[in-house]
């Protein structure tokens, strides 16, 4: 069952239950009160009858000698019955009080029993107790009271009747009215409760819809819930979560896109040399060649194979860099950069490039092998950027505010401004033909960037096309305890 209906029905049930119970209690107690009043009134009437009888008898006995005739009914029977009847006839505003006067055997001496009544009540009573019964006859309720009296050592019962139909009618009419009220309450209250339930549940529904939208991966619109209660709070939290989630999703998508690009580039970079290797190999095995041709083709195969080797090494570095913890050491900047200079110098000399080093001493907290890879990669790039004569590469190391800066600048071909942001992406090459010709795999700067991440340093590029490029590597100064 939906929460809405649960809420709706539970409110209706609780309301109806309490209203019903209190209504019933109210009607019942009012009925009980009326009933008590009527019984009281009936007894009062009975008392009046009794009083009147005593008085009437006392008076009659003075007038004549009834007592003498009491024992033997006969000629005077009619007479004393008349006397009794006369004594017990009491005129009230509602007419004569109905009564009957009967012997202890239940036989009616004077007055008359109301239709539908018999001596059943009298039979159950002893001479010391009075009693009443209520009977329903012809849709009318009548209370029948009986009390014992003793006249001239004989036992009799004075009975009277009082119509109390009104009490029952009132109760029935109350019950009817109450039922109508209950019905009305059900309808009107139901409608009101329906609206209230809807009002309460609506924000939850909105939230649930929003959740479904989010789950389906659709664009997230914030949920508008204008309440300051718990649900409003929940909606606010939900919105915050959704924003966070969509941010994360964007980041993930971006990551996936980059990953896809990486795989695509990798496939291309892998398959290009493979195509050559397989193609030239195929030619060697299926065609008849001259010696010279054979050597040329074999040379191509070796060269492409080496390219694959370089690429796999760089990729290996990249993978390892992302996974491993490196042990940092404190080294002297002068010593470190001098060793880099010595390593690269022969290659520079071979290309006829002027290679200058300006090194200021300082303390570096680095993994020397990795950092050396960065420096060699950068110097290698600088070397490759230079065409012809007059090339110059400067390796600078100097203390700067907050750390140490190593920079490599060249006067080579430079990098177009729009390409600067992409150069550290894996497999990105500004000039493919040229880079491949010189054995590049397009991974050098990606490796450098990854190494700088390990060192919590950063790397910046500055270049003007046709003038040259300057790459700056910034290493943060470290405290004595080695923390960055």
């Amino acid at each position, binding site marked *: 069952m939906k929460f809405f209906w649960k809420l709706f029905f539970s409110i209706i049930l609780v309301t109806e239950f309490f209203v019903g119970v209190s209504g019933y209690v109210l009607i019942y107690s009012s009925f009980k009160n009326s009933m008590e009043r009527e019984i009281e009134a009936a007894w009062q009437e009975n008392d009046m009858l009794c009083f009147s009888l005593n008085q009437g008898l006392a008076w009659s006995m003075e007038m004549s000698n009834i007592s003498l005739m009491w024992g033997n009914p006969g000629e005077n029977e009619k007479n004393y019955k008349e006397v009794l009847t006369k004594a017990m006839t009491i005129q009230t505003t509602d007419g004569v009080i109905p009564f009957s006067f009967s012997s202890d055997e239940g036989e009616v001496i004077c007055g008359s029993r109301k239709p539908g009544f018999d001596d059943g009540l009298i039979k159950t009573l002893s001479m010391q107790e009075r009693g009443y019964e209520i009977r329903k006859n012809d849709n009318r309720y009548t209370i029948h009271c009986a009390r014992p009296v003793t006249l001239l050592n004989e036992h009799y019962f004075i009975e009277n009747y009082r119509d109390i139909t009104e009490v029952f009618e009132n109760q029935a009419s109350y019950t009817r009215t109450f039922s109508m009220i209950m019905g009305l309450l059900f309808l009107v209250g139901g409608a009101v409760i329906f609206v209230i339930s809807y009002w309460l549940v609506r924000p939850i529904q909105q939230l649930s819809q929003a959740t479904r939208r989010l789950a389906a991966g659709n664009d997230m619109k914030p949920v508008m819930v204008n309440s300051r209660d718990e649900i409003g709070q929940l909606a606010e939290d939900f919105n915050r979560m959704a924003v966070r989630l969509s941010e994360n999703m964007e980041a993930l998508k971006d990551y996936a896109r980059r990953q896809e690009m990486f795989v695509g580039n990798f496939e291309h970079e892998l398959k290009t*040399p493979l195509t050559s290797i397989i193609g030239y190999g195929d*030619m060697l095995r299926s065609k008849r060649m001259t010696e010279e041709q054979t050597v040329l083709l074999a040379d191509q195969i070796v060269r492409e194979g080496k390219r694959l080797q370089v690429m796999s090494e760089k990729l290996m570095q990249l993978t390892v860099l992302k996974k491993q913890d490196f042990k940092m050491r404190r080294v002297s900047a002068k010593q470190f950069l001098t060793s880099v200079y010595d390593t690269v110098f022969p290659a520079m000399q071979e290309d006829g490039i002027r290679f200058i080093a300006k090194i200021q001493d300082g303390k570096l907290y680095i993994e020397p092998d990795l950092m050396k890879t960065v420096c060699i990669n950068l110097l290698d790039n600088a070397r490759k950027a230079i065409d012809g004569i007059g090339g110059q590469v400067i390796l600078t190391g100097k203390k700067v505010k907050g750390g140490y800066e190593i920079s490599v600048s060249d006067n080579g071909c430079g990098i177009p401004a729009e390409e600067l942001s992409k150069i550290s992406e894996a497999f990105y090459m500004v000039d*493919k033909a040229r880079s491949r010709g010189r054995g590049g795999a397009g991974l050098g700067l990606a490796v450098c960037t990854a190494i700088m991440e390990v060192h919590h340093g950063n790397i910046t590029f500055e270049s003007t096309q046709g003038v040259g490029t300057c790459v700056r590597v910034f290493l943060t100064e470290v405290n004595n305890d080695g923390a960055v």
Partner: protein
Amino acid sequence: MAAREERIVNRILIVEDEKAILELIRMNLVDAGYVCVCVQDGAQAADILEKESFDLILLDIMLPKISGYELMEYIRPMNIPVIFLTAKSDVMDRVKGLKLGAEDYIVKPFEIIELLARIETVLRRYNKTARMLSVYDVTVDTFSRVVKKAGHPVSLTAKEYDILLLFLRNKNIALFRDRIYESVWGEMYMGESRTVDLHVQRMRKKLGLESKIVPVYKIGYRLEVDE
């Protein structure tokens, strides 16, 4: 007419930025009797397409400056068949290439013989191949499928005819048994069967080419032609 060979030379433009692959394709296409023009980027390709006409273009997709896809848009109105060369094996890329109007799609790394077969197929579709193929005194009319030796018709079975065509289109190239089987029978070669040898031997006997279609040690046969 049957005896006279009509000499159709197909001109092929190769657009590939990787020098080694470009050279590889060029060498093989020249050996197969095509005339090749090579360019290394899209801009050059567009320039040369303005001036010269070609029967087929081999187009790399990842090109500097103008990509293969962009160049394809430029080529389409010229009605020149294009075969894409690419390292991307992604189905989406393949569909994109074919939707742009390429005739075929070859994924690197490819075997040369496969490339030649595809070029042949596309040229045939465009009716740009030579009707008559010949070697020594054997001529083949590829339209009527009539094979003649020294002017006299020779009757070949369908498989023998297909094998002959394969050799004629791959002169001086060693054809491996699996390659022959796959291209003529159209099924995977399982390696144990002598079917290929039987057919090749019967075919070359019928045409008197025993000394020209020579076995290559352990792998297959080669039709040797002096150039």
